[in-house]
């Protein structure tokens, strides 16, 4: 019954858009990352597969420690090494496996063809350089632009992401901006050379709720305008609902469920996903006790045998403690295929249909 994981994602990538014959922009295959710490080897990413097409948004959802950020750092090639090491798999970007490229070639891809937006813009921007310098640096280094030209471009970028009085503010330092404005600068920096893929690592977590919505909207608009692929890493189910096309849920370094975004909300096929959805407070359940997933995220040095979620799972059986569930293709109760859906649960049928 269970099919191999890569087939599911390959299938998941098909459909939706008209250019379904084209290869996806980014394809991550069986990626494995580990951290060699003094306390032992932490397996942060254990065979992750996903793909992103141009213009598509993939949300990767998970708790801290699920490997969502680490896998994207591996894609960007900015993993702290040591202690982090990519120990297996492929990262195919525009037809070439990034892991086989030289460091210099990977560097030239960073910033020009793929860019990253970080969570905390205050610490992610250099405090001692003006935002203009930091934005202009992209053009100066990758395009060899002159100083004055780079500054002009920086002002244009700031205007593009909606920063008022950009001409004056280009000479200010990061700490002189508000949180939302700083995150806009991060976005402008990622956007500078119009990359094909943007990875946003919790881009709105550090912001106020009202500002969060503005920043997400800006990101979505720009993505549509430039037809970029977007990987949105988040722990917040609320953030992804409006922007993402599809979702991959990660747990203990594996993808446990993939689904088109609205399908996932309607009918989760993995007990973990269901637990996450049930723990969102809802107005119609006012007065009832809020559901919480019991237990703690797993220790990556000692991932539980079998399904990593089994100690916290309300549906766990003996098989869950012994056998690692593959990513099953999820179907309707009558066996009709469900486009792009997969669940790494021995009891996915019971979860989605039962």
């Amino acid at each position, binding site marked *: 019954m269970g099919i191999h994981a890569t087939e599911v994602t390959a299938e998941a990538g098909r459909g939706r858009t008209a250019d379904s014959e084209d290869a996806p922009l980014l394809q991550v295959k069986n990626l494995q990352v580990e*951290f060699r710490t003094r306390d032992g080897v*932490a397996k942060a990413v254990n065979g992750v597969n996903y793909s992103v097409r141009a213009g598509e948004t993939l949300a990767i959802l998970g708790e*801290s420690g699920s490997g969502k950020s680490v896998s994207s*750092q591996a894609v960007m090639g900015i993993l702290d090494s040591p*202690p982090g090491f990519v120990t297996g798999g492929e990262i195919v970007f525009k037809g070439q496996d990034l892991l086989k490229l030289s460091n210099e070639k990977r560097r030239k891809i960073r910033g020009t063809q793929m860019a990253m937006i970080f969570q*905390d813009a205050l610490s992610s921007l250099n405090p001692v350089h003006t935002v203009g310098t930091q934005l202009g640096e992209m053009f100066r280094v990758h395009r060899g632009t002159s100083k004055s030209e780079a500054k002009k471009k920086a002002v244009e970028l700031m205007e593009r992401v909606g920063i008022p009085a950009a001409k004056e503010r280009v000479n200010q330092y990061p700490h002189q901006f508000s949180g939302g404005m700083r995150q806009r600068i991060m976005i402008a920096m990622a956007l500078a050379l119009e990359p094909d893929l943007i990875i946003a690592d919790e881009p709105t977590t550090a912001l106020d709720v009202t500002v969060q919505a503005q920043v997400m909207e800006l990101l979505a608009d720009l993505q549509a305008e430039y037809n970029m692929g977007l990987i949105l890493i988040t722990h917040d189910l609320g953030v992804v609902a409006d922007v993402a096309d599809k979702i991959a849920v990660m747990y203990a370094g594996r993808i446990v469920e993939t689904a088109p975004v609205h399908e996932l909300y309607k009918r989760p096929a993995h007990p973990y996903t269901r637990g996450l959805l049930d723990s969102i407070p809802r107005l119609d359940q006012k007065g009832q006790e809020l559901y919480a997933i019991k237990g703690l995220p797993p220790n990556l040095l000692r991932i539980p045998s079998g399904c990593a979620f089994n100690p916290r799972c309300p549906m766990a059986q003996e098989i869950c403690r012994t056998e690692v569930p593959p990513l099953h293709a999820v179907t309707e109760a009558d066996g009709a295929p469900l486009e792009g859906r997969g669940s790494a649960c021995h009891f996915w049928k019971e979860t989605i249909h039962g």
Partner: protein
Amino acid sequence: MPDQQPNKPNGVPDDANTELSSAFAQTPTLGAMEVEGMLEKEDLTHAPEVSTEAVGLADREVPRSLWQDAWRELRRNPIFIISGILIIFLIIVAIFPGLFDSTSPLQCDLSKSQQGPTSGHPFGFDTQGCDVYARTIYGARASITVGVFATLGTALLGTLLGGLAGFFGGWLDAVVSRIADIFFGIPILLGGLVFLSVIPSRSIWIVVAFIVVLGWPQLARIARGAVITARQQDYVTAARALGAGNARLMLRHILPNSLAPIIVVATIALGTYISLEATLSYLGVGLKPPTVSWGIDISAAADTFRNAPHMLLFPAGALCITILAFIMLGDAVRDALDPKLR
């Protein structure tokens, strides 16, 4: 929400950190500068994900306090073991010099003046014909006494004044900070040359008192910074909201959480105070005979260094090993208490 991250410390407002940095920028000492990072460790909210994801999770099952964690770290550190054994040995020598030497450092025979090492007298004799080995053994007491008590004095006075200044702020802070600045404005060797030359009989305790008077501002600055950082933590606000009084807040909540940087700077300072005592003795304003001290012996030997190097090298070697042991200990303690550098 699933993303709880219990290991993340609370962020500190940015202006607090910059204020700390600027305070330390004026502190030209090894300990203070290296500790600067420690105080800012609360700002480590967004460390590379490995620290929270991989390492942080490993600790989640058995939560340990900073002190337990530091102790576990220390026991595994060979530098700590070596320096610890050395220091215990040196303290035994300082307390019971008779265990290591049967002769007296004051029993001298002029006919043996400046003779090199012979059997029974492995370090040779000094100008007065005293046994250099005996003087080296007995000299440990002066150096270690000065080091230990000067450190205790500066740490107590500095923590008290700096801590109160940091806790209450306002005019008290302004006054303490300016007084600290005044004493900080006197270079310590220069101060020694002027202050100590006034005092004709300089016992160990006079030298200790001098070091405390000129040394406390360094510790006060560290303590002030640490207390300001601790005061702004959420658990302190919580304790205050629950009605804890100032005394209780200080003793139960703030002091234990500000101690780490103070301990580190004090340990490293101990080594430098021993060095300072020797230097003062060399300048002729430190200890005076008949006190037996390495500093006195080294400066006495300096004039005849070319003819009888053993007179200088043995006490100097003992002095260096002692200072090295304390500085290594401070280094190891700092590494253990500062998770950021791990």
